[in-house]
């Protein structure tokens, strides 16, 4: 097998576009990152910034009108897009699983919740017998904080939080190396969200699993991830250790996102109002996509896409980084 120190996931120069009636929408442009084994990566950004498209690329769950124009996705050194559909089907759930935004749509309303997870386990031959599979589901249920008795219930008997837990149990059912959680708590109340975030964190550490946590909620991402990437208009504009990025944001967009986020703790500081709207992805502006809304924009921002400035693992794509310790690479 591969070396443990190799990254589990390498995304290299990924570009994806959708063909629509309005023309070609460039959903992801030249996104590259690596994810180490057992670490948690967060992707933050507003809706339409391409974070869900990245997840769908990794799962290779793309609609018909999507076109991968460049780049590779390497999972354990293997290019996901070179696999056949059948090979990919086996990879999903076993190697890489996903928790979707709408938990209700994932669970089939006419089957018992436990049975649905057992089926997922059995199709992937993770457990030899039905009894073993059943025991496994019971174990998973306890892990996500559900009573194993609930296996015999139907999805509609579950509350929103319970459903999301069941979906997480399902995503964990085949011991994946990587779990992608796409806004898993957005529809939930804060107290339930808090519990699920804590459970996710604990499970991730316990199973030494990698996780990609996608959210627009900076607070939630800050709490569960080790590394965070900020996306804007299909681009990854800043990335680094979560602590670094949120304490000393380098990209003006990250800074604006953070200061427009109301917080209940600390002093009541005024919120920054980010003017304008995200660009139209079928006709993105030249240069840095953020320049029309950026307070620091200069002529060079309007014409040329900025190079990476870097300090250790923290980098940003900006001509005028706010954190001056980040310097251009030679």
């Amino acid at each position, binding site marked *: 097998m591969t070396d443990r120190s190799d990254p589990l996931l390498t995304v290299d120069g990924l570009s994806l576009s*959708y063909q*629509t*009636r*309005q023309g070609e*929408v460039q*959903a992801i442009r030249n996104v590259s990152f690596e994810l180490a084994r057992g670490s948690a990566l967060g992707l933050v950004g507003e*809706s*339409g910034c*391409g974070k*869900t*498209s990245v997840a*769908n690329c990794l799962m290779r*769950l*793309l*609609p018909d*009108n999507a076109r991968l124009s460049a780049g590779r996705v390497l999972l354990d050194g293997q290019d996901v897009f070179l696999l056949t559909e059948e090979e990919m089907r086996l990879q999903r759930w076993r190697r890489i699983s996903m928790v979707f935004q709408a938990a209700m749509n994932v669970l089939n309303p006419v089957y018992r919740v436990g049975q649905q997870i057992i089926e997922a386990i059995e199709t992937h031959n993770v457990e030899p017998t039905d009894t073993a599979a059943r025991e496994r589901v019971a174990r998973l249920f306890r892990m996500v904080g559900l009573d194993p008795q609930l296996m015999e219930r139907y999805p509609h008997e579950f509350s929103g939080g319970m459903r999301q837990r069941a979906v997480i149990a399902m995503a964990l059912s085949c011991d994946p190396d990587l779990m992608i959680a796409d806004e898993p708590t957005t529809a939930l109340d804060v107290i339930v969200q808090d519990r699920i975030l804590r459970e996710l964190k604990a499970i991730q550490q316990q199973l030494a699993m990698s996780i990609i946590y996608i959210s627009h909620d900076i607070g939630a991402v800050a709490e569960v991830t080790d590394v965070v990437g900020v996306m804007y208009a299909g681009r990854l504009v800043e990335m680094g250790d979560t602590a670094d990025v949120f304490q000393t944001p380098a990209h003006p967009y990250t800074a604006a996102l953070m200061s427009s986020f109301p917080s209940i703790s600390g002093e009541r500081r005024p919120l920054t109002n980010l003017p*304008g*709207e*995200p*660009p*139209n*992805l*079928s*006709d993105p502006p030249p240069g840095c996509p953020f320049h029309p809304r950026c307070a620091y924009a200069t002529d060079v921002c309007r014409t040329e896409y900025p190079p990476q400035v870097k300090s250790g693992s923290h980098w940003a794509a900006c001509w005028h980084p706010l954190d001056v310790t980040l310097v251009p690479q030679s």
Partner: protein
Amino acid sequence: MTTPVPVGPIPTPEFEVELGRGRVRFVLARLRLMWRSFRSGWGIFMESRMGRLSLFTIVAFALMAAAHPILMAFVWDPATYDPVTGYSFDQVEQPAPPSWKHPLGTDPLGRDVLSQLLYSTRSEFVLGITAALVTVGIATFVGAVAAYYGRLLDAFFMRLADLIIALPAISLLIVLSALFHLNLFYLALIIGVLGGFGGTAIILKSQALSIKVKPFIEAARVAGGGDFHIIFVHIIPHLLPLALLYMMFTVTSAIFAEAVLSFLGLLDLRMSWGIMIHTANTGGYLLGGTRYWWLIVPAGASITLLCSAFYLAGRALDEVVNPRLRRRND
């Protein structure tokens, strides 16, 4: 999975509304808007082969209906060509097969079949469209009112609808026409009412129910809108496209019902396609097989063609009205 909609500032308006002063420009802008939405709907309708075919057929029949009075006034001698009182003295034997003078031959009473066919077309249109308007008027109103008020009113209308559906319409029409002298207008009314209280009202009601629970209805109430305002401004406009669709189907059934009743000789009409076949039948010519085809085929084919044209027009309208069907054709 949804394709991300390109987000961004709204595009430059196609028509800059500089509404400084004046009601005229205001009305003009509104008309232009209506014209634009009509054009886009028209485009979708004409894109479908069913739409083009049905429109062509309906227009052809309309031209036929319009041609009759002109022919009678300028070309045809009323004594010979009147659809009811005319008699062709040139023919030795009646019915006579098609000839130059009588392109579709004559009927057993020596009348010109083409003249009868063209003359009847007009009444078929009048009958079909009047019946459809009555149906749609009643069904839309009943559907909207039953859905909006619910409770007793709803229960009353819906049981009435069930009753009408359960009644065999054609048999009822036979009884009614035996008891009363039904002319074209009364027939249209009766067919309209029977059609309107049936399935159409129930379908429109279910559509209205889905509109009633939308937040914009509550918004209209908060704005101060009364029941009348909400029903006529917010609910009924949403029912009209679907109502138009069912109107097309009602035209079909009205023409068909007329044909059946006329064939049985129960209607007090001057001339119609059903009466043409009835005349052939009472003379015993239907038993002659294909020998007297000109007595049956023109009227029979017209009934079939016009009915299917309206039906296909309805199906094509369905694609305009129903975005779910439209998307498939993209």
